[in-house]
């Protein structure tokens, strides 16, 4: 039997044969050369100013829009998009095709990164936009069906939550949080909802990036519209995804965050202004959801080209 002891000592270079050996059973010998300092969360040397970096990246992002042909192209598109948004939403395929061209121009670092508004180009965007809309719908059909199926449940839950919070806000006589959760929310949740959530999550994490990689290839004319459904292209996209997951998820996180916040803000402002904001919402969308996202995917395309993935 014995206890474990910690011995600390210094080697002063002494020599001698008459000195006794250390008794007991040595478990570990560790040389401590310097005084061990406390753990640090971060050191000044490592701390690069992320805020400056973000500012610089945002500046790069907006530069093509602010001068010369780019500015003209963008303003024309802003007007066109806003007008067409109220004509059977024809702007949808148009701006998606427009965004596809942004991806190409940014990926190849062309001098003018805002796509032109020449009528023949516009027709091209229109058709390519349709290809994107159709392919995206087919890709996400399982997810759309699930959202549709559980959507009613979720909608009910959200509706209940809205009324509950509104009543709370107005201090109307109402039930407490616990009863609310028990009576209104929990009964909606069964194993089907769990399966739905899992499938949706898998879609978001895996299917969407694959879809976007093929989109980039389509933008760079490395595959045709049919490439979205070609086994060879999907397989190739999976390989690219596996090797460049960090870059892809990085851009994806950025794009997803912008998307969610923009949608929330647009819907919030539209509700708050009782619909008035909807008149300028297409313009905001064009900037945030189409220009910025197109640019981001373009940068991803550039990165993938540099990594010889494309």
């Amino acid at each position, binding site marked *: *039997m*014995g*206890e*474990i*002891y*910690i*011995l*600390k*000592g*210094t*080697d*002063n270079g002494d020599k*001698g044969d008459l*000195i*006794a*050996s*250390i*008794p*007991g*059973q040595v*478990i*570990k*010998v*560790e*040389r*401590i*050369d310097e005084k061990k300092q406390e*753990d*640090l*969360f*971060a*050191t*000044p*040397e*490592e*701390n*690069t*100013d*992320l*805020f400056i*970096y973000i500012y610089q990246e945002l500046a790069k992002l907006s530069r093509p829009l602010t001068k010369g042909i780019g500015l003209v192209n963008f303003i024309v598109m802003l007007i066109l998009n806003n007008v067409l948004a109220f004509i059977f939403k024809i702007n949808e395929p148009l701006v998606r095709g427009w965004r596809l061209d942004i991806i190409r121009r940014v990926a190849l670092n062309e001098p003018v990164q805002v796509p032109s508004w020449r009528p023949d180009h516009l027709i091209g965007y229109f058709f390519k936009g349709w290809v994107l809309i159709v392919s995206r719908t087919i890709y996400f059909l399982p997810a759309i069906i699930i959202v549709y199926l559980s959507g009613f449940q979720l909608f009910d839950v959200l509706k209940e939550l809205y009324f509950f919070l509104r009543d709370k806000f107005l201090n109307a006589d109402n039930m*407490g*949080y*616990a009863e609310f959760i*028990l009576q209104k929310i*929990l009964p909606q949740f069964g*194993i089907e909802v*769990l399966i739905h959530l*899992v499938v949706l999550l898998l879609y978001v*994490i895996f299917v969407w990036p694959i879809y976007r990689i093929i989109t980039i290839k389509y933008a760079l004319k490395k595959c045709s519209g049919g490439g979205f459904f070609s086994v060879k292209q999907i397989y190739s996209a999976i390989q690219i995804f596996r090797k460049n*997951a*960090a870059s892809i*998820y*990085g*851009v*994806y*996180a950025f794009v*997803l*965050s912008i998307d*969610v916040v923009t949608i929330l803000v647009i819907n919030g402002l539209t509700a708050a202004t009782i619909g008035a904001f909807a008149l300028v919402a297409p313009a905001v969308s064009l900037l945030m959801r189409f220009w910025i996202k197109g640019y981001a995917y373009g940068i991803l395309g550039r990165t993938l080209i540099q990594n010889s993935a494309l």
Partner: protein
Amino acid sequence: MGHNYKIITKLSAEEAQQIQQGEKIRLGSDSSNPEIILEIGSIEVLPTGVKALSEDFKKLIRALVILFKGSAAKISLATISMIYLALTPSGISAFFVRGWRLGIISRMGTLENKVGIAPQIRSLTQIGHHINEGIKLVLARFIYDIPKILVLVVVGYDYASIIVDFGYFFLSSIFNSAHSQSLSSMIQATSLKMSNGIIASLVFFALYSLIVTPAFKILEIKYALNQIKYSDFFNLKELFSSLNLYRKYTFNTLEMYFWDLFVTTLSLLVGFFLFSTFPLLIFLHPLWKLPFSHWAKSYGYGLLARRLIFNNELKVGPG
């Protein structure tokens, strides 16, 4: 010459008494150390039991203090919090932070003391890297938790009803002076809801959480320190090896696991408090969670990692 040494050795009481401060002893040579003669500076027993617990607890509290010590730490914390907050609306923050936490354990186990422990974020690709690792970990954890989830879904409604009752009772007694019911009547009402099925599933839940989850945490540590590949999470041999390691270091593992549960519960309460004060405040919850839940937990597991390395259970070289 002039080097300091730290020796961990097992001594009987008599042997320990023979060693005095200022004395010289010979340390025999082995593969990594030549023979040297040491002048003893200090001798003390390795803290165990309650003393070890309080030592570790002090380290965990110190870890919370260093977050705010010095401008480098504060800037870094602000930066990472901002990123975490920005990723929250889309939900992808959950993966990001898990990957970031893995980075903390990895750095605590491998890097020397000259750099900060928290992984610094300089580019989108680094964010993407953490998300990628986070997705892998969440997936593995989900698969490990499937038995628990199935039980919860089957018996869930009744569980939740009991938990919400208790939670609501305690929170209303903190925030309102008038109780709607006394504790005894509450327990009586609850016991009516407890069927044999619920009790059995509660026992299963508790056992599973105490046996499998800590072993999973050890697997995570091994993965963070590059001892195993990702596929080893699903390798029975690795799982049993981690279970053995857990058995050998039950005290230390459970120490950090209970710290984990404690900070998680505290964080949930904070969230509940924010939500009940004003629902929109819940969007600020990440600002609490990052330092006081995620950082706190991973520092704890990082300490466990260091202990395992120190005891030569994991072979790690300098970072």
